[in-house]
């Protein structure tokens, strides 16, 4: 591609506990994600998928190893610096949407910008951005609704708009379709796919679902805390290939 990876992890290890109760969740994992790439991470339960995602997003700290976002190392940053990285460079999408229940859809989307500004007030530039995002996620009509007035699919679309609002370096999605039915799941995935293609977003998505993974450009398989296989997705028959790989991993 001629451009270096936007996200890079080297020899990442994460262990919990000490002594006899010590558990290694991730073991010397190395990976790189190119700009605009949409990568799916798959693997059996307990393979370290979520741990990897949390480490890459600066939600948790690695025991050893290094992480670079836009060539800036985030391992070893203070909590305050990590917070700023999350605010500017990372967007999160969760399985259970995680919208703040007291805020409207629009306010939820604005949170990452509002907590970065002193007064918490919206600017004109932000208003235009909001219009664009709500159009993108097709939620213009419901932007003033509160989360409990929205369906699961709608909530997840709001969450995607929230992840996009700061134009982060990378979006990390943890089972984004896990709580959705097939139709809403497909909506969300094509939205993510469009974001990567049209808006130039880089996306890393953890999923169980081969039907979800096919929306990605490449699938990384994890097992027992290590990357065991990579599968570039091109053309047809990808679902079958993914299922075959998973079967080999014993999922």
């Amino acid at each position, binding site marked *: 591609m001629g451009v270096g990876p936007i996200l890079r992890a080297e020899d990442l290890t994460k262990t919990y506990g000490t002594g006899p109760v010590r558990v290694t969740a991730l073991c010397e994992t190395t990976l790189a994600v190119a700009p605009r790439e949409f990568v799916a991470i798959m693997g059996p339960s307990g393979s370290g998928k979520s741990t990897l995602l949390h480490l890459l997003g600066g*939600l948790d700290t690695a025991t050893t190893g290094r992480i670079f976002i836009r060539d800036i190392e985030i391992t070893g940053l203070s909590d*305050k610096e990590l917070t700023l990285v999350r605010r500017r460079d990372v967007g999160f999408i*969760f399985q259970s949407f*995680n919208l703040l229940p*007291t805020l409207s859809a629009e306010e939820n989307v604005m949170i990452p910008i*509002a*907590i970065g500004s002193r*007064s918490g007030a919206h600017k004109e530039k932000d208003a235009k951005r909001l219009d664009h995002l709500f159009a993108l996620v097709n939620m213009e009509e419901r932007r003033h609704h509160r989360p*409990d007035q929205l369906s699961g699919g709608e909530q997840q679309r709001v969450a995607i708009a*929230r992840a996009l609002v700061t134009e982060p370096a990378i979006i990390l999605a943890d089972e984004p379709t896990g709580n959705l039915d097939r139709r809403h799941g497909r909506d969300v995935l094509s939205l993510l796919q469009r974001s990567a293609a049209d808006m130039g977003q880089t996306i890393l998505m953890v999923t169980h679902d081969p039907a979800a993974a096919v929306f990605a450009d490449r699938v990384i398989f994890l097992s027992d805390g290590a990357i065991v296989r990579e599968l570039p997705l091109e053309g047809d028959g990808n679902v079958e290939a993914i299922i075959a790989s998973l079967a080999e991993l014993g999922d």
Partner: protein
Amino acid sequence: MRLSSLAWRNLATRKSRTLMTIAGVSLGVAVILATSIANASTVNAFKIMIDSITGKADFLVNSVAPGGFAAHKLGAVRQTPGVAQAVPGISKRTNLLFEEDELSVEFAGVDPRIDRSLRHYAVSGGRFLRPDDAGALVPQRLADEQKLGVGDSITIAESGTRHRFKIVGLLGEEGAGRFMGGRVVFISLARAQQVFDLDDRLTFIDVRVKDGADVDVVAGRVSERLGADFTVELPERRTEAISQMLRGLQVGLSFFGAIAIFVGGFLVYNTFSMVVLEQTRELGIVRSLGGSRLQISVLVMLQALFIGVIGSAVGLVAGVGLARFLLGFVSDTVNLQIHELSVPPEGLAIAILIGLAVTLIAASQPAFMAGRISPLAAIRIRAKVPSPGLGLIRLAFAAAVLGLGVYITFLPGGRELGRFAAWAVPIHATGDFLLLLGAAFMTPSLVGPLSRAISWPLRFVFGQPARLAATNLDRNRGRTAATAASVMITLAMLLSVSGMTSSFRHSVERWVDESLGADVYVSGPSTDTSYDAVYAKKLRKIKGVSDLTSVGYTVVNLGDGSALWRGIEPGSYQRFASLQIVEGDKEEAWKELRRDRRIFISTVTANSRDIGVGDTMAVATKEGKQEFTVAGVVIDFGGDMGELIVGSRADLKEYFGITDVSAFRLKVGGGALPADVAARIERRFPDMNFQVYDVQEFKGMVDEQVNQSFAVFSVLILLAAIVALISVFNTLMMNILERRREIGVLRAVGATRGQVGAISLIEAFVTGAIGGLFGLIVGGYLATDIVKNMKSLTGYEIDFIFPVETAAAALAMALVFTVAAAVFPARRAASTDISVALQYE
């Protein structure tokens, strides 16, 4: 597994919260029990005091005039049919002199030959008195306090002479040794007559009637035989008078006990809302596995029962300790040392019952809600939608309770209720309580608008955290309201007590300023100490004294009670004091007072008898009952429980035979300083037992007395405040726990630790402000009602003064404490582990 063991495990897993809730219940129970012990012990102490000195006597004979009566009257009493025994005695209040300070004690002169047949003396060291004994018998406790023993000496000063008494014996904690809470010294009758210049006179006779004789009949005969110069007092009347005197204190204590348990109830409610919240998933799982609604409710109620039982048990132990602590203050207020704790069984029962009932009632709503948890909660959590229907019902209920409370406060108080006057205080206390309750129930409806209004300006400083804080507060209206209500109640209580104190103090100070215009005050240790009138001349000669007026005191019998008679010199007294005459023309009144049998009476005396200027009043004099005409009604905080008659010294001499002077009021001139003149008097008359105060010292003493009277209530408020603080802390912790995931999300999308912590602190601040503002309004209103009641109960003229400074300080403290209580929860929120919090459900 049985439900009870599941309930127990749930409590055991959340140790710190369980402990805090138990602490809240315990404090409430402790305050209830302590107030009931304090009440019982106070009444008991007075009973002991009366019993200890009356012994087996059936009634007591006193002379109307002070200075005692001739000993031959003893023979007249003894010869009255039905009298089995008549025992003479002398009682005099004086000061024990020590190197550094003085101690006010009762000196009792008794006849060692016969006194033991009436009173019980438990000699614990040395020996009993002998006839003509020069020594003294001192209670062991008093001796220990002053580090004295048998063989040591004590000293008093009377009429310019120092008298030393060798301690010949010590008295144990029973019978006579407990008189006046042990502040008593027994000497022989002969020595007492000599020391107090009484020749062969006595000041009282104790009478025991023959077995089977009717006490009232015999007392009537004695009274008839001795004539109008004497009064006959049955012990029951004294007991009655004392319980009357203590009623205000008792109602006050009970009221604060109720408040403490009320605040404790809030704490329990908060806790159990939190328990249900935290266990939503677990309870949902139990439901999905086939648990019935009832079983879920029972599970929560069982936890409440455990907390209620443990909290009450701990509260009982703490209550006894607290009672001991409270009695220290009560002793000061009622001026009697109270050493013994009486634990009334019904007090114990009530404390336990209330502790359990409040816990169970407070937990019942959360338990009911728990029963309604859907089995789906095991799988998902949806944002709760507040039900507006319930809100309206609650608002209507709150308004009704509040309205009823306000209505009751408008009811007439005290004497206006006629024969129900004794119920005035309980009725008004109930009104005040309902008012608080209604206001507390009203808070949820006001939390929304108030939290938005208060947090609005904060947005400009703190930005997004302030916005989030406001929406969070609004979302958990019930909980925010419960916290604000705890703050409100505490503040309201604080304000009503300080309103009461400051109003009382203000009125007393005004009285002091206006009516006490002298520069130096000279008197004896008590109103029954008197000095020969010749000392007026001697005092005038002291350098710096420019003017002087003499005052004589005596306690007079009004038939339906007693009053202090202040005999003044109408001519000179006006130069020293301008009495606050509230009824009658001022100049006319003073002119009238110079005439025979004209008096001023205090508002207390006037109100309690419903008499005014021009009416007459019957007073027992040495010439029998005489009618005195009221020439004016004055505001005066002196007197016997406020009962005061201001008459002339001329009448004092004519009708009571008193020429001695009890107090002197002096003006200084020629550039002399009152303090210097006071010091000169003390140097010139070292052994006169003079209590000399310059005007500043006098005011300080008055101030101290006012403070002492209200100290008990301040302690109770402090306890209620502690419970409220635990409640606030609990709620804030609950907010954090409930929102763990949201906090995780905020942190994930880039909120700093500081911002997350700030949300909690702002929530606390706004909650404190809502409670504080509400408390100021409710407390201000309560204070007016309490002052109104105090006025009508006591008859004192008291102007209501809103304690502005205390209010400002209390509001500031409410904010500081609420925010301080939030520091730990805020830190906890800030340090939330994001990846764990995100998975938290």
